[in-house]
């Protein structure tokens, strides 16, 4: 097991496209780190550079104290689980799992022991002599994971491993992976575009966009204190609502919206309001779940509901405000109906302001 460190890692293609742009990252020993971002953000490329499948243009990768840039993938002692599982079709499950060990000339007895252990953890005992073709999607996924863990590598790399599974299996495998990590405590880098996976699995989350790291933090911090508008919009489901408007005299204006911006209580401390709040053009962001119909918070606007989804435990309501579509997440018992006009309130401190030009978060709300 080991710590992984990326230092100024870059990937430039021959046509000039920069896929990964000066990535600096430290992954602690035993940590579960999730790389998340929209497709094309460079998260997979970063992972593949760690794996050794992609050449590094500049920068360094360290595992422990060893610089592994120039090592062959097989010499890095890292295991990877692929999106399409990449099980060898011409080998049985047992051969698939033991292949890496055989390549390393591990003694037979040892191979058998490790395969047996992994099989037990993943409950694959009955499938050992089958070929990948004869397995279901979930089973293949488990074999792929099993192939990684028998090697007892320094680190696991996961490249969107759950995206080929159906929703139910995905949830099941997700918890299984969490349990597995808890059990093995192996350093793990996990790439996904699914923010639920990111939130539930990661010790820390790295949000990337256009090859650049946007934010590195624990899931909760990324949720609560997004570094910029992109992160704010990417993390959270349904996504955060944004209104473009203007601030003057401590009030946010946008169309019919007039929302007073008092000093957020207890968050930015004693900072002067005039200094912390941006003035002029700004974007107000708030999460669907922050909105409430109770009038003990400042009023945001009166809206007409267009679509209402009753989920039982919650009610998702869609409406338009200041020219954009918005979502509110109300209590499950809400009697709202499409066409209803309701007044929405936004509690103090549950909003985010972003400077319009930079999209950077307008506050320094760290506690």
């Amino acid at each position, binding site marked *: 097991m080991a710590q992984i460190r990326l230092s100024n890692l870059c990937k430039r293609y021959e046509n000039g496209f920069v896929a990964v742009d000066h990535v600096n990252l430290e992954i602690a020993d035993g940590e579960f780190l999730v790389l998340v971002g929209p497709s094309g953000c460079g998260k997979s490329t970063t992972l593949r550079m760690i*794996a050794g499948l992609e050449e590094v243009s500049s920068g360094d990768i360290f595992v422990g104290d060893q610089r592994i840039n120039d090592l062959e993938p097989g010499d890095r002692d890292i295991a990877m689980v*692929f*999106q399409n599982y*990449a099980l060898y079709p*011409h080998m049985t499950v047992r051969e698939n799992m033991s292949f*890496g060990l055989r390549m390393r000339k591990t003694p037979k007895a040892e191979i058998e022991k490790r395969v047996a252990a992994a099989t037990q953890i993943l409950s694959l005992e009955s499938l050992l002599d089958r070929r990948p073709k004869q397995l279901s999607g979930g089973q293949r996924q488990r074999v792929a994971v099993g192939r990684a863990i028998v090697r007892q590598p320094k680190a696991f790399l996961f490249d969107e491993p759950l995206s080929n599974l159906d929703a139910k299996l995905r949830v099941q495998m997700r918890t299984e992976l969490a349990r597995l990590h808890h059990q093995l405590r192996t350093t793990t880098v996990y790439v996904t575009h699914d923010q639920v996976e990111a939130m539930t699995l990661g010790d820390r989350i790295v949000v990337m966009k256009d090859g650049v790291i946007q934010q590195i933090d624990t899931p909760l911090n990324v949720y609560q204190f997004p570094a910029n508008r992109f992160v704010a919009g990417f993390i959270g489901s349904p996504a955060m609502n944004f209104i473009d408007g203007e601030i003057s005299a401590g009030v946010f204006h946008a169309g019919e919206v007039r929302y007073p911006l008092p000093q957020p209580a207890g968050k930015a401390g004693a900072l002067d309001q005039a200094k912390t709040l941006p003035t002029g053009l700004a974007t107000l962001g708030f999460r669907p779940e922050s909105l409430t119909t109770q009038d003990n918070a400042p009023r945001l606007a009166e809206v007409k509901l267009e679509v209402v989804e009753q989920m039982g435990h919650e009610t998702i309501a869609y409406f338009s405000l200041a020219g954009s579509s918005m979502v509110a997440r109300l209590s499950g018992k809400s009697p709202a109906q499409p066409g209803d006009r309701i007044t929405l309130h936004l509690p103090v401190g549950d909003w985010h302001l972003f400077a319009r030009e930079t999209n950077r978060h307008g506050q320094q709300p760290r506690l």
Partner: protein
Amino acid sequence: MAEAPESRWIAATRHAVLTLFVLISVYPVINVFSVSLRPGNRLRSTDLAIIPADWTLDSYQKLFTEQPFLQWLGNSLLVSLAVTVLGVGLAATGGYALSRYRFVGRKASMLAILTTQMFPATMLLLPLYVMIAYLHLVNTFLGLLIFYTATALPFCLWQMKGFYDTIPISLEEAARMDGCSRWQTFVRVSLPLAVPGLVITALFSFMTAWSEYIVAAQVLQERDMFTLPLGLKSFQASMSTEWGLYAAASILVSIPVVIVFMLLSRYLVSGLNMGGVKE
């Protein structure tokens, strides 16, 4: 497909079309067969019967007793198998490089390989012979081996490249993560997965060598070294062809190829891949 009422008609049409073309495919072969059974060197006959009334196996018997047919068969087998092994070996490795690596000169090589098909082969005979003589390969099977391999190789390379293209690259990446070197990845993962493609390549190489006679006529200078097509051609003279022998030998030459095709027809459909199809 059994649910629709139209399906019976469609099935009938399919059978009708297929039967018609099977007849067209098979008839010329049957024609050769019946010539081989006719006594007295009769090529032309108004008799449409497949087995002539006065049929005889004389031609076949003569082939084995009066002509070194078995020797020719042995030579042909030796050359064809060697070409197959060499052709498959080269196409398996070369095609892999073309499919998986972006090396300098790759595009140029691929175009060059394709352009080799564009030059009229007949014009290459003269320089070819001069070269064979220069390399002291006249009357050697090695000379044939090299030229047949070269003839079959362009198609085989394209075909294998196309086949490798359909193998997901992540399998190889997985192998490399599992500790394989590039060579091991090729040998232990890609190659076994390319077997259907290799089978087609083998078939094609074999066919090239099995049915070639123009180059063979240039290279081979001894009757005992003849390959089958060359032996067959020796029954032909401008105005006195031994049609019975020719037809009988034709049938015997064709049988092994047809058997190979039969055994491999399953692979033929899945293994022939000249590019395009990608996962």
